[in-house]
């Protein structure tokens, strides 16, 4: 009797495997990789400004002021244009947003901001896109809540949609 059951084992294992795979059908295969930098200080960086705005450095973020949003964007990034109205809404409701333009050129950034509006207080021109890996970003756009001591408190992946605006405002308040 025992041995008979024993030979059923592979079949049962196979059934378990099928159930596991079946359960994943229809789910997005893309794992969302949150940055492991949340809770840690922003890495050392300093970039010059562009489009008439001052640049941004780690020292600016750790200067002890109110929490700010840091938005990774690029003129070649379509969702960055999509989220422009939400960035404006955030500014209208009192948020300070600094931009980091990744892998971009001053001319393209200026044209992009002319067309979609400029919500940024400071804009860092990161030509090589170094800040993406430094912050643990998985793509553009991404938005980070940085508190007054320069600690990364929250990460938003992808474009900001209308429903994300209150979430970000709440996270800013929480980071105070």
């Amino acid at each position, binding site marked *: 009797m025992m041995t008979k059951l024993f030979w059923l084992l592979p079949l049962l294992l196979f059934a378990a495997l099928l159930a596991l795979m079946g359960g994943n059908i229809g789910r997005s295969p893309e794992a969302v*990789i949150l940055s*492991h930098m949340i809770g840690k200080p922003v890495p050392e960086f300093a970039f010059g400004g562009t489009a008439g705005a001052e640049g941004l450095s780690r020292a600016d973020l750790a200067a002890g002021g109110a929490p700010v949003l840091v938005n990774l964007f690029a003129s*070649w990034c379509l969702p960055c244009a999509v989220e422009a109205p939400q960035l404006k809404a955030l500014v209208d409701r009192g948020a300070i947003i600094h931009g980091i333009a990744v892998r*971009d*050129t001053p001319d393209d950034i200026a044209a992009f901001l002319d067309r979609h509006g400029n919500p940024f207080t400071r804009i860092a021109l990161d030509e090589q896109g*170094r800040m*993406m*890996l430094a912050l643990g970003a*998985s793509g553009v756009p991404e938005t980070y809540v940085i508190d007054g001591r320069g600690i990364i408190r929250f990460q938003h992946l992808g474009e900001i949609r209308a429903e994300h605006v209150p979430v970000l405002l709440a996270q800013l308040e929480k980071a105070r």
Partner: protein
Amino acid sequence: MRALLALLFLLLALPAQAANPVGMAEVQLEDPATEARARALMAELRCLTCQNQSIIDSNAPQAQMMRVEVRERISAGEDPDEVRAWFVERYGDWVSFAPPARADTALLWMAPFLFLLLGGLLLMRRIKR
């Protein structure tokens, strides 16, 4: 005819150059041994946007950025394990295809030996009968 062909190939080559993204000069390292070490690590780092590809296999811009970072760190004299640790610090164990040896991954590392043992036991039973 030859000149015409050459012109045709030149025209074909143009779009490829135009598609090169901004700020992304990807150059191999001059020292072949260092490049080989960088490449060995690239094969073990997971691309973030194309996910189940390694960064050496992927054409995604993010993978390209990661390769640039790897080459720069390796050529600056960093150990491949240090570079891997730098990526893991930012993206977690997920970014490395080589699982870390820790208490919570012990079963994974022991699995081949456990299966070997199981197979051996089954074989023993067979032979004895």
